[in-house]
């Protein structure tokens, strides 16, 4: 074909000449090329843009472009827009370099259809080696490309399918959905659905179309395969039901557990036709089952499943173990229920219409050993999907231990209850039979419950007492102490042993001894009637008092007799000597009489002090001086056979006490010592400073630590055993024969020491002697100046004309006083009662001082003084009073210019007082 109608006019001539040259060069080959079936084209690189100068018919055929449309254009006009730029660049580069090149490019035919063009382009050179043309051959390789694409697509599709299958397998596994199969026994062919295929890793399409029956075993794990082959053989041999679990090996090597459930279908001649079934992925279920099995075994939980209407129950191994049965998976209901003890609920309820959940506990006798066990069964009735019946699914487990503990607990409780009941009964009996008062009181002290003893003892009914306060009928004198104790118990303190009187309904008081026991915000009280005891105590005290008085009077009489003997004897002797005219020794007798009389006076004074508990009159005392001053008295008190030694300490501290009492105490101790040494011995009186430190004091609870002055009186006498020592300070305790001691001596010493904030210690050993130490507190002040008057001194003497009126009904005393006044140079007037004294006072006589007894018949001393003051306002008065009356003339009694002196008094005292009063005016 020649190029005649080429549209590319500008090149036309050049192209034509190029073709001519081609023909010239190629010669006859050109014709062959022209007619060749191989599509080819020739371009001339010497012309601009290397245009096509020749194409053959075959080229036009595959490109759709006739020669006249192709010639004059560059070959690239055929390239599709999506041609690979790299390929076209490669072609361009080869042509420019004059190399040959082979390439496949996507071209577009004239009608617009694309095709793959495999090109081979080779340069044609002239004799001198210059490139004059490019020859290109073309080959449509679209089909090859298509095949490749299809193959690629196919591969992609397969991959996608695999992935889908994989996903499906997972989905099925998760969903538990099954794949189904149908095994055509006659044709040995297996049809399976997509799910089955997914699990087996089969091509679903092929599987749906039908595969050889043996494929059924293909994916089964080798270890499971024989087993399944046997089972399938059973089905093929006429067995009906197929239910097997086995492992499948997935294409990726992973294992899945499946459960295949199938059934054989038979023809009318009972020949097996088809074997159909469902395959379920139970991998997860297996894990769960395994865990469940372990949990059940570990927990001792047996499971069962019962379809109503059936005679047997599906059971687990653990279920059989719990009942002591041979391991099996099905048991008759009757067998199971027969193990339950009569009267207990059955394991499996068979009555229809049951639903929901059910729980029961029952005892069984184990089948193997008859042992009794407690079991619990928990189950649920569910609608059975397959049979539309009711399925009872549940568990049993052993609760024997729990039941036993429960039982023990119950027994214990029962025992406890009965014990409590018994105890309560006992308590009740105690409560109702006791003669003691029992009551329960609330937090405010109100009775909330009382026992019958209240009625019996006090006559109050229960309703009269309950609700009243504890102190409702308390004796007024006991109210204070009762309140104290109530407060204590309501604070939570236990209170024991306190006595108080309660008024009974009849008005009489009963002594009750109470014990309170607090209990939370209430308290219990127990009261014992101690009225009789109190009465007995009173009687005892009375008799003790009488005894004491007897002893006292006896002792006093003894002491007085001694003293009176001294006085009377002395006076006797005085009289005798005076009548004999031998007056040289009279004074000695008078002194002796005086001493005895003084002692008698001191005795009565002490008695009164003891009786009255007279307060002490503490002053600073130098114990050394006091003891020394007593030496004469002591020597006269003790017998000749006793040696007296005084050991005063140097630098002795002062002490603060009542000197009279101290004197009395020493005298008492000396007398005791004397009496302890009937056969003679040594009496030692020592003084010393004594320091009691805190440590020692703590062991002697009644003594405060500090400095003390100690006065110890020791004898070498009989001593005392410990039990006597222990009682030595008790009042009225005496070891002396009746009538020889008051029993007050040591008791008074003790009382004095304690009152002086000191203490007394006795050290005694039988046969060796006794030491009594009196400790008196140290005094840091100055010594009081004590004027110790002796005899009627000149200072007491009256001045000229001083007149004293004495009114005293007791003539001896009056005479004594008058005599003293006379001795002192006073003018003395006398009256023996108030009225006569008053008449003297009404006279114009000079009277400087009225000395009057307080207790006068008719007009007492006080009244007399008052009258006298009306007449003589500035009259000074000295009252004489017996000790007993002192109380009656306490402070306020004495006005200015009035004083008082207590009987018995020393004459010297009287003289100094009289002088003192008169001088003060």
């Amino acid at each position, binding site marked *: 074909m020649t190029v005649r109608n080429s549209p590319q006019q500008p090149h036309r001539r050049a192209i034509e000449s190029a073709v001519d040259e081609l023909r010239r060069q190629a010669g006859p080959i050109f014709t062959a090329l022209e007619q060749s079936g191989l599509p080819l084209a020739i371009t001339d690189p010497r012309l601009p843009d290397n245009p096509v100068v020749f194409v053959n018919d075959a080229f036009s055929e595959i490109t759709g472009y006739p020669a006249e449309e192709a010639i004059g254009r560059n070959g690239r006009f055929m390239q599709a827009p999506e041609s690979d730029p790299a390929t076209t660049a490669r072609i361009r580069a080869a042509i420019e370099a004059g190399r040959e090149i082979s390439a496949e490019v996507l071209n577009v035919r004239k009608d617009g259809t694309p095709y793959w063009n495999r090109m081979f382009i080779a340069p044609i050179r002239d004799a001198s080696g210059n490139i004059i043309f490019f020859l290109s051959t073309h080959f449509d390789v679209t089909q090859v490309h298509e095949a490749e694409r299809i193959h690629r697509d196919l591969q992609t599709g397969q991959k996608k399918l695999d992935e889908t299958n994989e996903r499906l397998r997972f989905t099925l596994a998760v969903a538990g959905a099954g794949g189904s199969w149908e095994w055509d026994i006659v044709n040995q062919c297996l049809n399976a659905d997509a799910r089955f295929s997914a699990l087996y890793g089969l091509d679903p399409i092929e599987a749906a179309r039908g595969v050889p029956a043996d494929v059924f075993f293909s994916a089964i794990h080798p270890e499971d395969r024989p*087993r399944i082959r046997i089972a399938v053989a059973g089905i093929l041999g006429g067995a009906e*039901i197929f239910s097997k679990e086995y492992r499948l090996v997935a294409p990726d090597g992973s294992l899945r557990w499946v459960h295949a459930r199938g059934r054989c279908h038979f023809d009318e001649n*009972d020949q097996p036709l088809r074997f159909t079934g469902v395959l379920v992925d139970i991998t997860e279920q297996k894990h769960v089952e395994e865990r469940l099995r372990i949990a059940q075994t570990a927990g001792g939980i047996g499971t069962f499943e019962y379809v109503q209407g*059936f005679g*047997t129950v599906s059971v687990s191994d653990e279920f059989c173990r719990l009942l002591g049965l041979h391991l099996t998976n*099905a048991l008759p209901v009757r067998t199971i229920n027969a193990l339950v003890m009569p009267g207990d609920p059955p394991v499996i309820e068979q009555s229809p219409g049951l639903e929901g959940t059910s729980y029961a506990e029952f005892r069984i006798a184990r*089948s193997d050993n008859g042992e009794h066990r407690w079991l619990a069964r928990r189950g649920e009735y569910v609608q059975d999907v397959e049979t539309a019946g009711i399925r009872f699914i549940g568990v049993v487990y052993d609760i024997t231990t729990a039941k036993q503990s429960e039982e023990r607990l119950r027994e214990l409780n029962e025992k406890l209850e009965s014990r409590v009941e018994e105890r309560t009964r006992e308590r009740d009996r105690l409560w109702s039979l006791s003669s003691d008062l029992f009551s329960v009181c609330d937090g405010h002290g109100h009775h909330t419950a009382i026992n019958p003893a209240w009625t019996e003892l006090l006559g109050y009914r229960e309703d009269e007492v309950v609700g009243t306060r504890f102190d409702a009928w308390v004796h007024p004198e006991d109210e204070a102490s009762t309140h104290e104790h109530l407060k204590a118990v309501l604070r939570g303190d236990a209170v024991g042993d306190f006595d108080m009187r309660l008024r009974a309904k009849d008005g009489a008081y009963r002594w009750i001894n109470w014990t309170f026991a607090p209990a939370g915000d209430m308290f219990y009280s127990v009261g014992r009637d101690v009225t009789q005891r109190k009465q007995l105590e009173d009687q005892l005290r009375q008799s003790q008092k009488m005894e004491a008085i007897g002893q006292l009077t006896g002792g006093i009489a003894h002491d007085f007799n001694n003293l009176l003997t001294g006085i009377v004897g002395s006076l006797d002797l005085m009289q005798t000597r005076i009548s004999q005219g031998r007056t040289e020794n009279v004074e000695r007798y008078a002194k002796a009489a005086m001493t005895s009389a003084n002692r008698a006076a001191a005795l009565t004074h002490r008695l009164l002090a003891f009786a009255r508990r007279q307060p002490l009159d503490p002053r600073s005392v130098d114990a050394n001086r006091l003891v020394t001053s007593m030496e004469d008295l002591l020597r006269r008190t003790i017998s000749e056979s006793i040696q007296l030694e005084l050991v005063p300490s140097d630098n002795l501290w002062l002490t603060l006490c009542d000197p009279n009492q101290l004197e009395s105490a020493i005298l008492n101790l000396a007398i005791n010592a004397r009496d302890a040494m009937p056969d003679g011995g040594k009496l030692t009186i020592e003084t010393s400073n004594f320091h009691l430190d805190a440590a020692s004091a703590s062991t002697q609870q009644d003594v405060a630590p500090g400095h003390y002055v100690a006065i110890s009186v020791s004898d070498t006498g009989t001593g005392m055993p410990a039990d006597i020592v222990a009682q030595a300070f008790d009042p009225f305790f005496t070891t002396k024969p009746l009538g020889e001691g008051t029993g007050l001596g040591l008791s008074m010493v003790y009382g004095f020491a304690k009152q002086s904030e000191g203490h007394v210690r006795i050290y005694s050993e039988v046969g060796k002697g006794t030491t009594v130490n009196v400790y008196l507190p140290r005094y840091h002040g100055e010594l009081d100046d004590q004027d110790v008057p002796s005899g009627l001194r000149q200072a007491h003497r009256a001045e000229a004309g001083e007149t004293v009126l004495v009114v005293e009904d007791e003539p001896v005393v009056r005479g004594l006083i008058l005599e003293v006044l006379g001795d002192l140079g006073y003018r003395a007037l006398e009256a023996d009662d108030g009225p006569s004294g008053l008449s003297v006072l009404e006279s114009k006589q000079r009277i400087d001082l009225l000395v009057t007894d307080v207790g006068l018949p008719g007009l007492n001393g006080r009244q007399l003084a008052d009258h006298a003051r009306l007449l003589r306002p500035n009259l000074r008065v000295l009252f004489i009073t017996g000790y007993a009356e002192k109380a009656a003339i306490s402070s306020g009694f004495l006005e200015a210019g009035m004083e008082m002196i207590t009987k018995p008094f020393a004459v010297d005292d009287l003289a100094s007082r009289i002088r003192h009063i008169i001088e003060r005016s």
Partner: protein
Amino acid sequence: MSVDIALSELERDALTELVNIGVSRAASSLRKMIGEEVILSVPAIEILSPKDASRLIEEREAGQLVAVRQQFEGAFAGRALLIFPEETSLDLVRAVVGNQLSPDEVAEMEQEALAETGNVILNGCLATMANMLKRSLDISLPEVIRGDGPLLFELLHQRAEGGLVLFLYINFSVRNRDIRGYIAMLMDLPSLAALQQLIADFIERVVGKEVESVSSKGTDSQNASWQA
């Protein structure tokens, strides 16, 4: 229980399957006879002494039992028993012959009906098994016997040598009827050995060479699990 003759797991599976086939057939026969669903348990296979076998039954059924017994001989020999609690046997009869009969008629027919039912079930079962093992069995006529577990298993099996029997039992129960029972097969040791060989042949047939490779690989673990 000590076992002289040990079945491999595969043999046990195979035997179970054989019994399953037989019993399936029997159950389907029974189903056809009484028109109710029949539930079968998976067969349990034990090799134990007759005493243990009777205890096994005893612990399930304390009362009197009725059994239909058939003896079989051939490649292997033994007795097959279809056992019911006595109190349900009449129910079975009634189920088989229909409800329209009076109690007296039912009682009259009991022996015969039981024997026939037993024959259908046992014969079906045994024949199927023999067929699968490609052997034939001579099966005696059924006889109905009554007694408790010991009687059925001990006195009736005085011949047992070695004191061991294959005790194969299946519970079955019939829906909506209080009917349940067991199928037991008693074989002595020589018969057991023969049966074992037949089973091995059966496995060989069914599984082929696959077994060789697998069983040699799996024997240890299988035996281990067996004894567990």
